[in-house]
């Protein structure tokens, strides 16, 4: 499990998986996100991973909160039930869905605002519950849909900024996970499909909660001081709607993070982020070592990617609750109702 073998990612669009389905069968509605948005690249990787795993689309339940990220559940697996819920509340709703039907492949998509601001408490407790699901955090460091306020996550382009920047300590979903008992933690970059697809596949195979933090650049609100086309600049200089009203067409950023080593990736505004893959021989099962390693990378200004931590031992929600192997939704009513005779035994006389 821990080590992820990178497969070749190119597949002809018409190729069929073991279920006879093509990638197209795992796609969804047309995206309404900005051209070049990292979230769309993540969607593409997800389509790919689901197709490769040949998961029956109708067994997927895809859920999200609110945000640009939240919309993406509509853009893959059209054969699956989707639920674009309320801001920050996807974790409990996913918990309910999975509690009711443990056979569902539950996929949650969230944004950094959705997960780390309004939804922080729910995410922490989802980790504790170890709900069996794939949780994708589409992390762009901003609130995209509400037009570019700072979010609580690490500023994606922070390494390139000289001097002052976002002044608040970022909340790192991976470190949070390590402290809250998460059992699968991975990080990747939306532009590196080669790394991302296999990570998503392992995450989908995990016994409990798999959190995948994907750095996903927002092409429109790239919040870096010093960059003249940034939101912050816009705000401070009081040029009204003009700038955010116009979203220049941008290509999605692509990059490959070498398996052993680091890559500088240039963001839309010229800022650069240094990604590094976990090295060969990295042990993702040693929680203390992982924490230390992550903190060191952070101190070096590097974004560590790959499968960062995994523990297959802890039971998931259903195992903890010792609930029936059969999905609760499938249990016939007759088995659930104790019946009239039993009722007459209840209550004091």
């Amino acid at each position: 499990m821990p080590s992820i073998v990178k497969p070749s990612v190119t597949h002809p669009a018409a190729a069929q998986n073991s279920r006879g389905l093509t990638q197209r069968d795992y796609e969804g509605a047309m995206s309404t996100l900005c051209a070049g948005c990292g979230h769309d690249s993540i969607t593409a990787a997800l389509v790919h991973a689901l197709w490769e795993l040949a998961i029956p689309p109708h067994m997927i339940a895809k859920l999200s909160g609110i945000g640009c990220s939240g919309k993406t559940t509509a853009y893959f697996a059209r054969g699956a039930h989707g639920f674009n819920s309320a801001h920050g509340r996807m974790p409990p709703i996913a918990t309910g869905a999975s509690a009711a039907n443990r056979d569902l492949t539950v996929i949650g998509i969230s944004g950094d605002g959705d997960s780390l601001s309004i939804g922080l408490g729910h995410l922490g407790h989802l980790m504790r519950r170890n709900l069996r699901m794939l949780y994708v955090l589409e992390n762009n460091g901003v609130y995209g849909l509400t037009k570019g306020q700072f979010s609580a996550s690490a500023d994606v382009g922070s390494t390139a900024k000289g001097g002052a920047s976002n002044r608040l300590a970022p909340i790192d979903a991976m470190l949070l996970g390590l402290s809250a008992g998460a059992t699968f933690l991975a990080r990747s970059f939306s532009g590196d499909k080669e790394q991302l697809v296999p990570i998503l596949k392992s995450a989908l195979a995990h016994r409990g909660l798999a959190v995948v933090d994907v750095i996903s650049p927002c092409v429109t609100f790239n919040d870096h001081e010093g960059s003249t086309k940034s939101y912050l600049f816009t705000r401070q200089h009081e040029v009204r709607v003009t700038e955010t009203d116009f979203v220049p067409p941008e290509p999605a950023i692509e990059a490959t993070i070498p398996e052993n080593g680091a890559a500088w990736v240039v963001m839309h505004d010229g800022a650069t982020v240094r990604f590094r893959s976990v090295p060969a021989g990295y042990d993702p099962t040693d929680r203390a070592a992982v924490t230390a390693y992550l903190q060191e990378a952070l101190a070096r200004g590097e974004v560590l990617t790959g499968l960062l931590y995994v523990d297959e031992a802890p039971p998931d929600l259903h195992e903890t609750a010792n609930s029936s192997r059969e999905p609760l939704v499938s249990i016939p009513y007759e088995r659930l109702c104790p019946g009239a005779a039993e009722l007459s035994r209840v209550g004091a006389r």
Partner: protein
Amino acid sequence: MAVTLPGTEAGGAADGVAPRVNDFAVKLANVNGTGSSSANNLLMRAMFRMGVPVSGKNLFPSNIQGLPTWYEIRVNKTGFVARAREYDVMVAMNAQTYAADIREVRSGGFLLYDSSWPLDQLLVRNDVTYLGVPLARMVNEAFRGARERILMKNIAYAGALVAVLGIDMEIISDLLTERFAGKEKLRESNQRALRLGYDYALEHFECPIDCHVERMEKYDDLMLIDGNTAAALGCVYAGATVAAWYPITPSTSLMDAFTRFCERYRRDPETGRNDYLVVQAEDELASIGIVLGASWAGARAFTSTSGPGISLMNELLGMGYYAEIPAVIVDVQRVGPSTGMPTRTQQGDILACAYASHGDTKHILLFPCNPTECFELAVKAFDLAERFQTPVIMLSDLDIGMNDWVTPTLTWDDSYRPDRGRVLGADELEDISVFHRYDNEDADFVTPRTLPGVSEKGAYFTRGSGHTREGAYTETPDEYQAVVDRLAHKHRSAARAMPEPAIELREGARAGVVTVGGCDLAVREALQILEQRGIALDFLRVRGFPFGPAVEDFLDKHDLLFVVEQNRDAQLRSLLVLETPVPKDRLRSVLVYGGYPLSAADVVDSITAQLGA
């Protein structure tokens, strides 16, 4: 599901007349955390076994140890056991509240106290009979260890009351035997403590006193149970499999009971696996989220909470309404606003629940009046939630939920099958050309839904944002309105499916009284007292919202209506004004909202005053 309620015989209501046999009230003043509650419960239970209608109301503080707590027992042979406002017997076990407690005894009544220490002469009333029992001394002599002495003192005063009130000692012994089955030593010491008080009382007082119990023909169709336990049973019997909650007084015992019953009935004896899943969530926002997620996926799911929880659920309740997801919420109401008085009772969440959430939102409400209805309406709640694909809130309250009630025995019809509403299975989906979530409405304006995991053809996208009949995202007025207009019709349509109101008509009634929930018994007692005074009034108790034709008809037929409810702002009256055609000047209010269960006297006083009678 009509219920035979106690107190339906004429002439049983208390009317200031000094009560005597099988018709009196006892109040026990204790200190929280000293174990008095089980002693008090024992007494109440024993009287019930004697076939005497009785109630026990726990007036406890929001504290674990050390603050004053009271227990009130009302005995009434005709079944009117709503809270009394005057007491025949006071058991004064708390020095802190002694002065206030003694004031509450009716003239000619009795006071039982611990005579180990001398009584402050300032606090002696000469219209009250004092029954001193040297409880502390007796117990200290008979038992060792602080723990045991504290506990046994309670049992000792219970023993004295057994003698004084003429309770059957054999029944008490049976109860102790049952309670301490397999714990012989505990049973023995309890029995011993009981005898200490009993023997002392027999020896020193004329037993029984004039207020006492006598065996009655057993009410075979009554049982003793609290509303939260009964509601939990309703959820079990309705087939709920997923529950989520966050602890909050006074709803906690509901989920405790649900868990307990599930452990008993829903665990596979072979595999040890459970046919249910209860999640103690991180907060109420999560609880309702879990319920919506589970219902969306096809389970019957519910949560229980109280006022503050309802406030926190506002956003997702609106989502449930708009995205049309079933959900059952039990709100065991306590005194608001804000944290309010968590251990006191009120009916203050009626408006908050009816219109919970921003935007145009309306919910279905159910109002049980006692544990039996908690059971029945809990089942109904799931049927309505799934039939109408929307959250249903059952409004119980602390008095119903946490106190033991003598209530019509719970019965079950084994032919019951859940009404799952319009859910298309794989086969049905096969038969249609295309599935659109919010299209193809039936006469109740309900559109069919599908569940995940069934068929790709049924796949749709659930959203709290603007959507079309097809379920697609929209920002277009017509498309948006088509869906919200149908929702308004659907809510109105649900009126036909709601439980009928309870109605009692009286010959020559001059006016009507409308009430709700736990006010039932006190109001009906009040109407009997008023009738004795020559004021005949018709009675209606609403059991659900939206209101149906029977409610409208009743309102229509009375020029003057008193609305009796337990809140400051006349919330039921407001809902009637907004949601029925009744002209508002017909409706007068009787509002009692101090936090104690309603008593008939409150109602009699107010109506008499308003009628200038």
